[in-house]
């Protein structure tokens, strides 16, 4: 038996106003571009979230629960659904109610907190867990860290927090000659199960689907299913992990992505050995094959599969270091607004916007970047941060 695991990532950051200038520091505490956030959320809802959720509901019903998927929805995305488009949330609630959809825990604010503050990281994971329970009535047992950032230490920390499964990128530098199509165990642990993304097959859908220059274009459900079937005999699970916005947003509806997805369950289950499962089912069906040692951080971003999309240039490093320095003062305030505001500034997207490595992945970065240059992103971010610092100073939470 071979299991196909779909995991979709849903995330929308609270974007900052692009006109927040030096002159606003100390006078203007409205940081977010509500208009843009609302507009983008509704646009993506219309193109992706709503039609794809409805399609998945259909497929789950049609296959009597044999078709299953899993989601990780960041807390800030859930908040924006509540605020701007409750119907999207409603369709996710319907998916949860089918019992065939697993929801995965992450950091509420889609942050890089594990790298900077374990205390903050833990709090954000708990906040997200609570949010999932409140909105969707689920108790997650699987964890994925922001952008699939992962190492041995994270796995151990997450096991301590009571999770059973963790998701990571099947990066070449980690797997080497080994296949991502098995269940693994993080180094030094005995209970935790590690699911690694099959980036080849995942990216065939997420990135290459509509690429007319690709030799496999056009990709049909049958062709894709034949690649999945070809793993028969040398694998137990195929982990297809991707951004949910692949459907309708990165790959527009007119590329045929919805028709592809609609036909895929049948095409894959045509082969009797193949099933769909969620991460928590996987750990009950299979035993980890081997230990995987990841001493340094990996992620699912860019071709490097490392942290350089968010960290490493002086803009990113200075900004993130400074914002985490405020943790103590922010929490001492006990003011939920200040804490929430600060935490929204921890969202990884802010640092992604400051990325200067345009050459290899510039296109992708540009696509997701509301700023003209990483320098603009940095300046807006630091202006906002300085206003927050002013507020903390006024409340005597930071020494002047």
């Amino acid at each position: 038996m071979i299991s196909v695991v779909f995991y979709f990532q849903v995330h929308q950051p609270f974007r900052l106003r692009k006109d927040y200038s030096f002159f606003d520091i100390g006078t203007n505490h409205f940081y977010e571009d509500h208009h843009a956030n609302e507009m983008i959320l509704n646009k993506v809802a219309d193109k992706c979230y709503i039609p794809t959720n409805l399609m998945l509901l259909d497929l789950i019903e049609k296959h009597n629960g044999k078709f299953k998927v899993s989601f990780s929805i960041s807390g800030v995305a859930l908040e924006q659904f509540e605020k701007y488009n409750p119907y999207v949330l409603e369709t996710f609630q319907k998916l949860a109610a089918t019992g065939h959809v697993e929801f995965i825990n992450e950091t509420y604010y889609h942050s890089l907190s594990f790298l900077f503050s374990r205390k903050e990281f833990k709090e954000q994971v708990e906040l997200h867990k609570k949010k999932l329970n409140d909105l969707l009535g689920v108790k997650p047992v699987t964890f994925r860290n922001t952008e699939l950032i992962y190492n041995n230490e994270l796995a151990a920390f997450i096991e301590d927090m009571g999770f059973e499964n963790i998701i990571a990128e099947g990066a070449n530098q980690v797997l080497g000659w080994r296949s991502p199509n098995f269940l693994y165990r993080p180094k030094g642990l005995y209970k935790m199960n590690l699911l690694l993304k099959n980036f080849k097959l995942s990216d065939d859908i997420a990135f290459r689907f509509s690429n007319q220059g690709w030799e496999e274009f056009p990709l049909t459900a049958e062709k894709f299913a034949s690649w999945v079937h070809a793993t028969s005999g040398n694998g137990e699970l195929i982990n297809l992990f991707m951004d949910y916005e692949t459907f309708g947003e990165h790959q527009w509806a007119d590329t045929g992505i919805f028709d592809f997805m609609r036909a895929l369950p049948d095409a894959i289950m045509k082969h009797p050995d193949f099933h769909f499962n969620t991460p928590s089912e996987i750990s009950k069906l299979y035993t980890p094959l081997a230990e995987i040692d990841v001493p340094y951080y990996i992620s699912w971003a860019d071709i490097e599969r490392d942290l350089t999309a968010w960290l490493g240039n002086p803009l990113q490093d200075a900004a993130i270091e400074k914002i985490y320095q405020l943790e103590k003062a922010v929490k001492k305030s006990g003011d939920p607004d200040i804490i929430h505001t600060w935490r929204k500034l921890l969202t990884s997207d802010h640092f992604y916007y400051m990325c200067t490595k345009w050459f290899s992945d510039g296109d992708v970065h540009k696509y997701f970047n509301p700023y003209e240059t990483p320098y603009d992103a940095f300046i807006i971010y630091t202006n906002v941060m300085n206003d927050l610092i002013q507020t903390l100073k006024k409340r005597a939470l930071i020494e002047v």
Partner: protein
Amino acid sequence: MFGWEFPPIISGGLGTATYGITKGLSNNGVDLIFVMPTKKGQKFETPFTIIAADEVHRIKKYSEVIARISVSEQKSLRQSFTIAPYFTKEIFEEFITTTQNKETIKKLYYDSKGIMRFTGNYGKNLMDEVYRYGLIGEILGFSEDFDIIHAHDWLTYYAGVAAKKASGKKLIVHVHATEFDRSGENVNQAVYDIERLGMENADKIIAVSYFTKNIIVTRYGIDPDKIEVVHNAVDKNRKIEQFGIKKNVDEKIVLFLGRITMQKGPDYFIEAAYKVYKVMKNVRFVMAGSGDMLSRMILRMASLKMLDRFHFTGFLKGMEVERMYAMSDIYVMPSVSEPFGISPFEALVYDIPTIISKQSGVAEILKNAPKVDFWDVNKLAEWMILLLQNEDFANEVAEKSKEDMENIGWDNAGLNIKNVYSKVINQ
């Protein structure tokens, strides 16, 4: 040029500004006829003619003009002469009654020699005097030989408009202050009406700041394209409060404002700032402007991790520039090579002590300003600290530097005004 005050007769900033402007214009080769209400028996030493309104015999001048020109011209002159001064209904009616009774005119306006009285003050009969000054403007519009009319503040707008109607020449009104600056929201309607009349009849308006320009646009409904901004060289009244600006941060601000290019030495500013940053808490640095070195400067600042007290504003324009200057405590121009460099003057207008590089032309004029070699970031940092920690000394440096710039500053303002003249004449 119509003014109300001229040194040694001055009671406010207007006289000083008018003096500076006439000097700046003269130094730029502009010939002037300066008109003022009265000389009060004072002596004036100027390279141009001054006409006092209370020395003009209107009837005599009129006869002179009549004698000089042809009959057909006389006819049109007669027509405009009787029409020109009617600015408002009230004045029109007053004029009708007074012209019909010459004795009343005499009693109201003229002394025994047939010359109108002017005090040149701002007393009870100011409105009356402003109107009479308008009549003088009209006759001078006929009698004098000139290319353009320039009127300073509302007191002289009647005169300017009347001279324009009489001569057909272009009119520039110069707004040093508006009624909103003087009276807040409780404006004197009569003054406002005159200001508006002047602005509407002007071919171009010169505002002393973008702040003033903004008022002219929003409060007087004037097309912004009609307004040019020429900063007066030294204007002690332009303080932060006057702009309605509240400084948004408590710390002192050290400012770099200019193009962010190699020539301007922004990198030396950052290195010096870092030295100060490490030893002083109560200071922020602002780099305002744009240029090909901007991204490198942002990276450098981020590497030095000064982001909690070093800010980039991008390119600033108009009022933002004024606001930035008004908020700053020290201005630094670390240019690597600068033929002249006008920005320290701008800074000094706001009483900001200014540190300049020895490699700038302006260093020759600002003898009392602290000067450093552009590459000497240690010296630059030392100067910043000295000025930041010693307010009295900083004020003294600013004061002395302003004395240095006073003359040359007005030349610059004069040149800018001359350019406005050319533009208006050729438009």
